[in-house]
């Protein structure tokens, strides 16, 4: 995997090289064109200059002499020949070959002589009977263009290398906030769930950091709940365990059969209660994690749902038939828990009613027991919370399970004082229809 730094570097280096390369090509073309134009002009002017200085018969053919001092590079550039109309070489500069530079037409032409390419300008002077040809050795022209381009290219390559180093360093400096954050994350302990700070120059990282902080907050909250729950569960299990241990110790130590029998009965009671507590804990753990699947929902009859919890003279169900759209096995637990609570406190009446219509329909379960104080109403449904007046033996998990299951069904639960005198439990958000 490529680091962001390397990726940025490669992109920037390629783009820069491309721009520079383009510039070099453009300069080369431009230079070549300009050099051609200037040199062509020079050829033309030279040819005109030479021809203007000649009068008819003023020249005689020269011997083809060589030697003298060696030619300098500049002198070698231009070559001049003067020919008679009959094709006789009248005169030539030292740099010029003896062979005719052009085929004799007026204007520019090119020709290869002895492997050298020449660009020639020819001027005809019919009145004086000469032809003047001035030529440039193209190899030398190319050399000129080449040195101009090389002169530009060498600093370009050096500049590009220097730019490469600068780009590499700049990208590194620019990415420092990311590196800082990476280091901070990498060196973080697993139990450190504080939020991540972003360096002041890392504004672009803020959305990333805040998403990460959101995740950290959710993990932290889940972990806090889990720790609390585990601690509370351990706490709640310790007390029945202590009771069991004490009773077992009594049973083992006593010689009195009545005392032993009593202790063993107490152990049975406690084991049953602890088993209920464990069942409650497991149910709660299951209800907490799983939302209800729509495919598992059925329309079930309200009346049979409540009657399944056992016959009770105090129970008053609505006269009309209603059906609820719920996951049957899980909703049965809700009804069973609410009915168990109501049965424990109701004096003469437990009333089940459906209030409202359609999506606003609310299932209400009320009792005429002693009711719950305003302070306790707020705490109802907290895990292991038992009201002061609650019958002994409850696990303190029943309403927590009701809350969790209702949440899994997409509904909510509200607790209020009942007009009957006891507690009113309202189940909101359940699909209810008349059946």
């Amino acid at each position, binding site marked *: 995997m490529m680091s962001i730094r390397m990726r940025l570097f490669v992109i920037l280096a390629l783009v820069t090289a491309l721009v520079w390369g383009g510039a070099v090509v453009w300069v080369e073309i431009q230079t070549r064109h300009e050099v051609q134009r200037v040199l062509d002009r020079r050829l033309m002017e030279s040819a005109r200059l030479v021809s203007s200085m000649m009068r008819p018969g003023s020249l005689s053919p020269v011997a083809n002499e060589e030697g003298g001092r060696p030619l300098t590079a500049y002198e070698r550039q231009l070559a001049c020949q003067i020919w008679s109309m009959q094709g006789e070489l009248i005169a030539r500069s030292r740099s010029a070959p003896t062979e005719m530079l052009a085929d004799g037409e007026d204007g520019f032409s090119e020709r290869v002589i002895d492997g050298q390419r020449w660009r020639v300008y020819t001027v005809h002077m019919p009145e004086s009977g000469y032809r003047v040809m001035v030529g440039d050795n193209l190899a030398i022209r190319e050399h000129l263009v080449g040195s101009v381009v090389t002169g530009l290219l060498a600093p370009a390559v050096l500049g590009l290398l220097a730019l490469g180093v600068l780009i590499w360093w700049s990208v590194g400096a620019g990415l420092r906030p990311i590196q800082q954050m990476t280091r901070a994350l990498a060196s973080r302990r697993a139990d450190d769930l504080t939020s991540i700070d972003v360096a002041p120059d890392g504004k672009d990282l803020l959305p990333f950091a805040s998403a990460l902080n959101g995740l950290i907050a959710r993990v932290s909250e889940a972990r806090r709940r889990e720790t609390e729950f585990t601690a509370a569960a351990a706490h*709640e299990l310790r007390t029945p*365990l202590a009771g069991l*241990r004490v*009773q077992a110790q009594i049973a083992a130590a*006593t010689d009195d059969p009545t005392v032993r029998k*009593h202790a063993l009965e107490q152990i049975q*009671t406690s084991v049953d209660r602890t088993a209920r507590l464990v069942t409650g804990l497991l149910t709660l753990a299951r209800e907490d994690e799983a939302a209800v699947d729509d495919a598992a929902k059925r329309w079930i009859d309200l009346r049979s749902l409540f009657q399944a919890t056992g016959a009770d003279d105090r129970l008053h169900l609505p006269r009309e038939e209603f059906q609820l759209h719920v996951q049957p096995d899980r909703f049965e637990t809700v009804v069973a828990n609410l009915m168990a609570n109501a049965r424990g406190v109701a004096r003469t009446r437990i009333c089940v009613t459906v209030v409202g219509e359609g999506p606003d329909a609310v299932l209400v379960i009320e009792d005429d027991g002693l009711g719950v104080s305003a302070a306790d109403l707020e705490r109802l449904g907290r895990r292991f919370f038992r*009201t*002061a007046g609650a019958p002994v033996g409850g696990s303190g998990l029943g309403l927590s399970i009701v809350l969790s299951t209702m949440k899994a069904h997409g509904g909510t639960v509200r607790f209020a004082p009942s007009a009957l005198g006891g507690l009113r439990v309202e189940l909101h958000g359940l699909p209810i229809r008349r059946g």
Partner: protein
Amino acid sequence: MRLLAVEDDPVLADGLCVGLGACGWTVEPVARVEDALAALESSTFDAVVLDLGLPDGDGLEILRFVRQRDMDVGVVILSARDDSRDRITGLDTGADDYVGKPFDLDELAARLRAVRRRLLGRSQPALSHEGVTLDPKSRLAWRGQGDLHLSRREFAILEALMERPSHVLSRSQLEERLYGWQEDIGSNAVEVHIHHLRAKLGADFIRTVRGLGYTLQ
């Protein structure tokens, strides 16, 4: 020794009554803060076994109540909350000892005896007065080499008197130590036990302070 057991779990409360009752103590069980405060206000206890998580509040309220009133009572916290922070809070609020649940009944009894000893400013486990020695653990009493063969209630009365030989204990104070709330007390039950004790220990071992009660000096 008379104990108040503040515990809302019925099985454990029953275990404390029966188990600590077998040590010769009278145990009164209550399950709520309110009831515990009422019991402490209305009668005298030698020690309180205190659960912290109670249905109508925190057991520490009871501890604060006891310490604010400067009651002469040992408090042993019996709690499922037993990490060191909870222990520190409990002990600093004024508890004499802190026992985590679940616990060994014999250990709790031993701790209660130790708390009682410290409260009375004594380091010897055995009580002795004028040649008579009581062992609160084994519930045995002897004079010199001879076993005194005391009944449970005789032992309890003698223990109460020997814990503070110079104090005068009234008949009702002795009755409280002997009988739980549920038990019927005969009108002259204490006198009967004192009579038996005098027969075993000699007539002038226990002195009657007329109109006040009994003392050893």
